[in-house]
């Protein structure tokens, strides 16, 4: 499979605001159902174990005109929920039998309640992710929550969730996570080989199609990259932090990489990489999933940081791991988790002498000139003087 074919496929899947790939999968066999989930992290293993197709609901980006969604939100609420409401109110999400709302922030939390009011016949669940505290207690709590979710999704799908199904799903997602880690490793080592735009499209498409298809495409892509690694280029290596929920428009990602930067680590579609280790396959699968989240979720702005020095260290650690030259804090406007975290993360970066810049976007931002100038100046400063 050619790289361009894979990227074209991913682009087509991502740009399809009618969720054609998911609808097609459902139509292939009677009784098939799909469950949507919002950012950032949902235990997709349980959706799969219930025989359902997990579908990432990340909004309509810059390709969706908001007509109804704005009537649901005040001007000071971020763009993502109004875009998600637009998708739903226009019927584009009518193929979903369940929607899960993870504990990302109060906006997504309250969106779960709006869904309960707007779509009373749909299965809606708020996923109260365990936050910090004692790991044993958090694991017990989250395991109980996962058991309720497994029971409910089994009822919604008509296919009870059993241990065998859960183990199969955990194994399948371990494979996917491993491939995603490989993608990120490849980009980090040779960013000229893996433009972030392509990596991003692949991951986002992966949240809209059956897992097997995603795994096959990523394998194909990695093989294509190995066969044609591309010409080595020298640009400023940057970490883009803060875009874990509302996603930047693809144009913004392109703009950063066309302004003299290589993105070598990011938060995009973070749910794909929330668990930084394989989930154990032996023993109680729900406990294994719970433990994996409590003990192996990546530190990020949506979770409590139990380590008092954690916020100060986070960017320094990420920059070191990615061998980056600097950080771009790119957050969605009105994003509480990212914007409240930023002063702490920035202070840590500055204390470690790491150059950084910051800007805000919305998923439907259409003008990139200001970002081009900012990122370009930043890259020049790094290359010329080793700092911003």
């Amino acid at each position, binding site marked *: 499979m050619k790289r361009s074919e894979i990227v074209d496929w991913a682009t087509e899947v991502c740009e399809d605001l009618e969720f054609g790939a998911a609808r097609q999968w459902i139509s292939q066999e009677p009784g098939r159902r799909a469950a949507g989930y919002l950012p950032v992290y949902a235990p997709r293993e349980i959706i799969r174990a219930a025989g359902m197709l997990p579908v990432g609901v990340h909004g309509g980006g810059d390709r969706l005109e908001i007509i109804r969604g704005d009537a*649901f*939100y*005040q001007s000071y609420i971020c763009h993502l929920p109004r875009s998600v409401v637009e998708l739903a109110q226009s019927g584009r999400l009518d193929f979903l039998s369940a929607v899960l709302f993870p504990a990302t922030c109060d906006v997504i939390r309250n969106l*779960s309640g*709006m869904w309960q009011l707007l779509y009373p016949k749909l299965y809606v*669940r708020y996923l109260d992710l365990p*936050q910090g505290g004692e790991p044993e207690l958090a694991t017990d709590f989250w395991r109980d929550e996962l058991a309720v979710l497994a029971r409910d999704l089994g009822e919604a799908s008509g296919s009870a969730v059993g241990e065998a199904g859960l183990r199969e799903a955990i194994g399948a997602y371990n494979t996917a996570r491993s491939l995603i880690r490989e993608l990120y490793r490849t980009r980090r080592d040779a960013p000229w080989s893996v433009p972030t735009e392509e990596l991003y499209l692949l991951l986002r498409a992966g949240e809209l199609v059956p897992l097997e298809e995603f795994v096959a495409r990523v394998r194909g892509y990695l093989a294509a990259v190995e066969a044609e690694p591309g010409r080595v280029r020298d640009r400023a290596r940057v970490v883009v932090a803060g875009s874990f929920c509302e996603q930047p428009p693809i144009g913004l990602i392109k703009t950063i990489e066309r302004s003299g930067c290589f993105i070598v680590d990011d938060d995009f579609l973070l749910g794909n990489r929330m668990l930084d280790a394989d989930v154990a396959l032996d023993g109680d699968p729900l406990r294994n999933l719970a433990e994996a989240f409590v003990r192996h979720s990546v530190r990020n702005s949506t979770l409590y940081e139990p380590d008092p020095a954690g916020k100060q260290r986070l960017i320094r650690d990420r920059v070191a791991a990615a061998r980056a030259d600097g950080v771009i804090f790119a957050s969605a406007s009105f994003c509480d988790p990212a914007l409240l975290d930023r002063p702490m993360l920035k202070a840590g970066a500055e204390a470690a002498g790491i150059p950084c810049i910051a800007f805000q976007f919305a998923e439907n931002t259409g003008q990139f000139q200001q970002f081009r100038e900012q990122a370009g100046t930043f890259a020049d400063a790094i290359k010329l003087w080793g700092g911003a």
Partner: protein
Amino acid sequence: MAEDDKDRSMVLQKEMLAEHYRRLEAAPETREPVVYTFVPGNLTELIRSFGALPVLPEINALQSAMRGKSGAYIAAAERSGHSEDVCSYVKCDIGMLKAGNVSPTGTRLPKPDLLLLSYTGCYTFMKWFELLREEYQCPTVFLQVPYQGDGEQSPAMRAYVERQIRESLIPALEKVTGRRYDEDRLRENLKRSAAAEDDLVAVLQSARKTPSPIDAYFGAVYYVGPIFSAFRGTEEGLAYYRALREEVEGRAARGEGPATPAGRLDVQKYRLVVEGPPNWTHFREFWKMFAEEGAVVVASTYSKVGGTYDLGFRHDPADPLGTMADYCSGCYTNRNLPSRVDMLARYAEEYGADGFLIHSVKSCNSFSAGQLTILREVERRTGLPGSFIESDLVDPRYFSAANLKNRMESYFQMLEARRAGAGVVA
């Protein structure tokens, strides 16, 4: 309101608050331990049982705003890198800290010995105390109170909170205060809490009468002050609520309305239910917009952020840890949107409301996200006309008096037109 127009309970509360801040200022010398925590899900009885003094950052922020200090604090926080887009309570608190941590009453606030991060109904709380931890470098205990996403607290959720209190919070309090956990003392505190809660509910429910002897939004923020903050479970708190109840029952018996910035509101043209927190920077001006039109608020949801006692909850001394879990779980913003709609619709019916109004604040997504859906749903369920107005908690830049007044006047005209049988005016 002039000092001699104020209710006796308001004066009493002012003295309690002043004394509390004086004790806090003296804490470094008296060695009374200090625990910072939040209003929703506050465990004051437990903190007090260890001989510690609570500090509530939201109270400091709103008090600063009422004294006209929040604008400068917020500006200072923004200059130091905090975004314009985020909660103004947080920025006000950070700005106050940077300016020397002088409390709204002018006394100096001590550093915390412990940050008790009761994560109840508000995501921002988590970031707020992460930010304060950076400044104070003190121990922090995280207490996760699961959200009532399905509209109720499950046994597993209750057990989780109870275990965290027992296995994580109590040992931390023992460590910072140097005292052993004293369950008998805690039970005594909880007993006093329950008695004060009875009195508070009687006060809040007095608004069912016509005329209402209280304003259940602007007035209620004073009434809930002690019980939502440092005084639940204390003798002073108990005495305050006894006095308040007597005062309000006296007014009700005499057929009097509440004191307002526009004078005593005996003639009440409109009875309203209000959702959302008030604006604190222009509190009196805002209240006056209602009072001058003869509007009295008969029920509000903001007066339930620190506990939904009117729905039946009372602290239970027989089950000290379990009852604290129940308390935290039931706080208003820890309830899902359908539950919030139920409360508003119930209030509208039980309190004989003419309409309901949502005051949406920029700062608080926990309250604000979804309020337009709440508006439609409550209108549908009750048939009452709703109104939607916007400003902020403590950022004075977002209070537009002319805009608010215009909207309020239009709303009252609409209520008048409906009353006159002229139908709904757009």
